[in-house]
């Protein structure tokens, strides 16, 4: 009997563990690694991106609500200012409810980097690096790197000009080559190392690239100025602080591929 209950325990435990890890990879797709030349490469040095799993959709209001129910310390009234500024979840009607103005399936915005990072960690995931995000986002519907396709760039720039796209629901823009939705066309997204962008000392202050401010600043320069859309993304990242919560800025998570 004793050994029987042990077996049951092991089985139940095993089932829980496997559903758990299954749940974690749910709604994620494989981004097959490769080499690309980022906008801010070092003398056109290619960057190698390892294969990883990426969320198919950005995190939605509803997803975030679930997170808040589990981790109430991240509610608007509880989140510390060091980790989330005064605009954190400001568009939510109540402390723990989004209200009737926001669509449950719209992407969560007005979240800080700390909050986004925590959310991903609590799913057993993490935020993508700038390189991972840019790598996955080079793809259009049909090819993994569409950066030279004029219509692709035009589409992104048209979105940057379009108002209130954050009101749309997740999955409402195109599905890219990897099977990922909404990398362009919905909201901008946090990246793990957003503070690796060194366009200037302080983009917020519009200071010039200055050797007084950076070691090795001469190495930083645009390698593909054709890609104006990417330029805007880097500039935007460079203007952020980690506790900023911005209206059109959301996030999604990624995960390393477990080596069996």
């Amino acid at each position: 009997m004793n050994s029987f209950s042990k077996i049951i325990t092991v089985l139940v435990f095993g089932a829980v563990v496997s559903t758990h890890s299954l749940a974690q990879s749910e709604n994620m797709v494989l981004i097959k690694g490769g080499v690309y030349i980022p906008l801010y490469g070092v003398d056109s040095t290619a960057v190698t991106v390892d294969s990883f799993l990426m969320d198919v959709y950005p995190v939605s209001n509803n997803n975030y609500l679930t997170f808040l129910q589990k981790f109430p310390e991240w509610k608007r009234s509880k989140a510390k200012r060091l980790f989330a500024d005064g605009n954190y979840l400001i568009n939510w009607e109540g402390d723990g409810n989004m209200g009737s103005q926001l669509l449950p399936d719209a992407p969560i915005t007005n979240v800080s980097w700390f909050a986004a990072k925590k959310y991903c960690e609590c799913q057993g995931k993490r935020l993508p690096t700038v390189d991972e995000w840019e790598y996955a986002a080079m793809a259009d519907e049909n090819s993994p790197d569409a950066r030279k396709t004029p219509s692709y760039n035009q589409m992104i720039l048209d979105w940057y000009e379009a108002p209130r796209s954050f009101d749309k629901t997740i999955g409402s823009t195109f599905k890219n080559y990897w099977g990922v939705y909404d990398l362009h066309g919905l909201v901008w997204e946090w990246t793990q190392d957003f503070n690796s962008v060194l366009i200037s000392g302080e983009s917020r202050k519009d200071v010039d690239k200055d050797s007084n401010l950076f070691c090795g600043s001469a190495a930083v320069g645009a390698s593909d100025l054709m890609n104006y859309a990417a330029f805007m993304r880097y500039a935007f990242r460079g203007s952020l602080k980690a506790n900023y919560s911005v209206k059109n800025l959301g996030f999604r998570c990624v995960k390393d591929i477990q080596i069996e």
Partner: protein
Amino acid sequence: MKHYKIELMFRRIALLPILLLFLVSCGDHPTAESVAVFENDTAISELSIYNLPSVWTTQNNEEIELKELQGNVLVMVMIYTSCQAACPRLVADMRAIEAQIPKTKKDNVTLILVSIDPLTDTPQRLKDFAITNDMDSPSWLFLTGSEEDTREFAAVLAVSYKKISPMDFSHSNIISVFNQKGELVHQKEGLGVNNEETVEKIIELAH
């Protein structure tokens, strides 16, 4: 670590429950109880860096949490020891600041250099760097942590950095001053810039 070394050990024991809280904070059931423990324990303000749970290693190979530094004025900068260009100047700036702090106030000020290259900057390397640069007095603290905690800490300081080659990083040169509660009160950006304001702020805060 001078006089707060013993206190440090004591605090570390007191901190255990909090550490545990952070360890389990992504578990399935973050109890209201554990949250309450956190709130009761501290008078840490919302904007204090002592909210950061990260654990660092000093040049003396001791583990330390930022909040163990509570009560001191902190002057912080992020560097890496193999840096050839701006860092020696940043280090010189820090030394110049240190030299202007009156002797009577030195005990209440800690000057901290946080490595952005934790893979290279081992405690031993930081120790050597401290000795070479005449920064081996108890006023100086060198910290190295995980890559992730370093990235997070930089985010708090609004410091940007990026590895641009196996040897080199590009990074912003910002000296930050924190008050005794761990709140950021002053930042100065740039190299060899006038440090008068920074020193004034430190002297005003320190007792």
